């Protein structure tokens, strides 16, 4: 291929194919630039409006209703963009929409709770949108380098956000711990990626899988240790982002030290992106891509030659279609991944639930709740990988279960942290003991908080129940019954500490030394809490629309 052709291909791939599918991210980039310009003394626009409009535009471009709705005008078939660095499919659309919807709701919440004051606003929103950009890249990563890049782009702004409250000892400590752990985990992950890339001769996930599946046995035996070590080290970085045990240390400390708003960002957006990334890596390494990796970024003129080349490539491949359905040479890889993910999931949710008991600070309690939920949400990932070889349509159902869980989790945790932030403003405290007797002052708020907590437990009639039921249900066909038992026991465990908060709010006598609470539901804050809690109830009674969306998002994941 001559240099001219190379440039022509690159231009076709970038301008004609990729950029239009990358519009949400471009909108965020533009917003960040505009926000920096808006600080110029001549202009002076409030960064809040710029951020709100920018993220709303990005959400408009992400357009789940165009790709995922029943009568979708544009099919979201899997398509590699930017020469295979990223992948665009239903899952990308779904997770990007979740992240951007969160960004819009979150920006409104920060205005109501007033944590970035006017002075800090531009910095705060720049960091938030920069982090969201990294998370969108995590959700669409198709190349181990974009995996690393996405993790870093999401983490570095989060470190700064954790220490956003200047002059607070706890915030500075939280930020230091977060940045040191985070950078260490990222370094280990990069080393793992270098080992995997060196052993398989590529860092493009579909190519790596093809290499792995077609590798002669002696070469594979030679590389086995390196591959296992590399996979484990890559998992360290992912586990850190998921706050999975044993890389969860940072989570409670950071949640306690940082403000409730930042906690909402870390516990929803960061977690959703980390799960999407885990899915990308686990599913990517668990099944063979249909076509050879290099295609569809070729201009139509050169297509004919490429098709001919592809034909020889396919016939040369050492596996036929028949063999591939039964054994594609990846079952050891899958077993390894299922083992690691299921084990970490079981330990993570057990640890999170046990450690949550002793907490007196509501933010710390929610940190452990977040850890436990990360464990629950990793369970369907393990099931999906286990089913990839046996029953791909069922594996897609597992992914759909996770996607549904993430969608519901967004509202539960966003509403919970919004309430924590508004109560902090109202009574200057984040201790559970100070919530005692709150029902006498603000019954509406207590009702909302109770709905959230019951939904987080996974009791019926709220959306948390459906999400958890579905996530556990898919473990049965995956033959991970032990994981199901662990999950069930954990749900029983979690009952007590969530209900204790409800009991404190409703039954306990008010503490004498508490500042008077004046929080009315007939205020912007009250309406916001009600609006964000509403989907928890609505999706519990009427989950079909979201279920259809997640089904559409996962339909073409495994071909």
């Amino acid at each position: 291929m001559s240099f001219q052709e190379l440039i022509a291909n690159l231009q076709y791939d970038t301008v004609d194919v990729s950029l239009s599918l990358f519009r949400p991210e471009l909108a965020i980039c533009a917003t960040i630039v505009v926000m920096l310009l808006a600080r110029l003394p001549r202009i002076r626009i409030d960064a809040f409006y710029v951020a709100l409009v920018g993220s709303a535009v990005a959400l408009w471009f992400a357009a789940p209703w165009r790709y995922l709705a029943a009568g979708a005008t544009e099919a979201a078939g899997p398509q590699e963009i930017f020469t295979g660095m990223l992948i665009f499919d239903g899952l990308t659309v779904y997770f990007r929409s979740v992240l951007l919807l969160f960004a819009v709701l979150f920006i409104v919440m920060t205005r109501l709770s007033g944590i970035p004051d006017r002075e800090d606003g531009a910095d705060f929103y720049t960091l938030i949108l920069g982090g969201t950009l990294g998370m969108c890249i995590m959700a669409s990563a198709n190349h181990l380098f974009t995996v690393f890049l996405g993790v870093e782009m999401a983490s570095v702004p989060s470190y700064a956000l954790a220490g956003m409250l200047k002059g607070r000892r706890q915030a500075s400590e939280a930020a230091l711990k977060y940045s040191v752990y985070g950078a260490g985990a990222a370094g280990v992950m990069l080393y793992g990626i270098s080992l995997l890339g060196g052993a398989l001769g590529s860092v493009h996930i579909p190519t790596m899988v093809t290499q792995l599946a077609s590798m002669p046995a002696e070469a594979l035996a030679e590389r086995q240790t390196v591959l296992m070590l590399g996979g484990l080290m890559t998992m360290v970085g992912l586990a850190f982002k998921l706050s999975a045990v044993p890389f969860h240390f940072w989570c409670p400390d950071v949640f306690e030290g940082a403000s409730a708003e930042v906690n909402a960002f870390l516990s929803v957006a960061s977690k959703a992106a980390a799960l999407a990334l885990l899915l990308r890596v686990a599913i990517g390494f668990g099944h063979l891509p249909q076509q050879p990796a290099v295609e569809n970024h070729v201009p139509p003129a050169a297509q004919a030659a490429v098709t001919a080349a592809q034909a020889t490539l396919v016939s040369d491949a050492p596996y036929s279609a028949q063999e591939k359905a039964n054994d594609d040479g990846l079952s050891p890889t899958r077993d390894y991944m299922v083992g690691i993910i299921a084990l970490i999931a079981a330990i993570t949710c057990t640890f999170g639930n046990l450690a949550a008991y002793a907490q007196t600070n509501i933010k710390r309690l929610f940190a452990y709740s977040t850890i436990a939920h990360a464990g629950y949400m990793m369970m369907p990932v393990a099931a999906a990988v286990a089913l990839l070889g046996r029953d791909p349509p069922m594996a897609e159902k597992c992914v759909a279960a996770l996607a549904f869980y993430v969608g519901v989790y967004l509202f539960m945790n966003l509403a919970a942290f919004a309430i924590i932030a508004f109560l902090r403003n109202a009574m200057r405290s984040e201790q559970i003991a100070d919530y005692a007797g709150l029902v006498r002052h603000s019954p509406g708020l207590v009702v909302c908080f109770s709905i959230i907590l019951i939904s987080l437990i996974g009791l019926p009639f709220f959306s948390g129940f459906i999400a958890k039921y579905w996530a556990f249900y898919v473990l049965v066909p995956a033959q991970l019954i032990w994981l199901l038992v662990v999950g069930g026991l954990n749900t029983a465990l979690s009952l007590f500490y969530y209900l204790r908060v409800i009991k404190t709010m409703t039954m306990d006598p008010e503490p004498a030394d508490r500042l008077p609470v004046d929080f009315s539901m007939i205020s912007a804050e009250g309406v916001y809490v009600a609006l964000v809690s509403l989907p928890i109830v609505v999706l519990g009674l009427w989950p079909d629309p979201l279920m259809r969306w997640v089904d559409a998002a996962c339909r073409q994941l495994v071909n």
Partner: protein
Amino acid sequence: MSFFSQPVGVSHFLVVGAVLFVSGVVCMAVKRNALGVLMGIELVLNGANVNFVAFSSPFLRSDNAYALGLDGQLISLFVIVLAAAEAAVALAITLNFYNNHSTVDVDRADELKG
């Protein structure tokens, strides 16, 4: 032929990378000064960089079917930039910690626990 008498190949570079990586991890684990910990992180990233460059070199490998190609070198360039960005943020956070605690001893970051 022993490892030392061979012509220099990928494995020699991998040893350098591994030594850098292990030094970095040890540095992160044992240093009490936050700046020392940050230096350890840089060592880890550079250990990975050495690996990437060695894997991607067409001159070092005998089995070219598994050579990483240009990807490796490009990744290491990006990682250098990322490491600088990360160091800038981490140093700012360390300075903020110093302003609040008058020390950069990581063992003094012990107020949050439980």
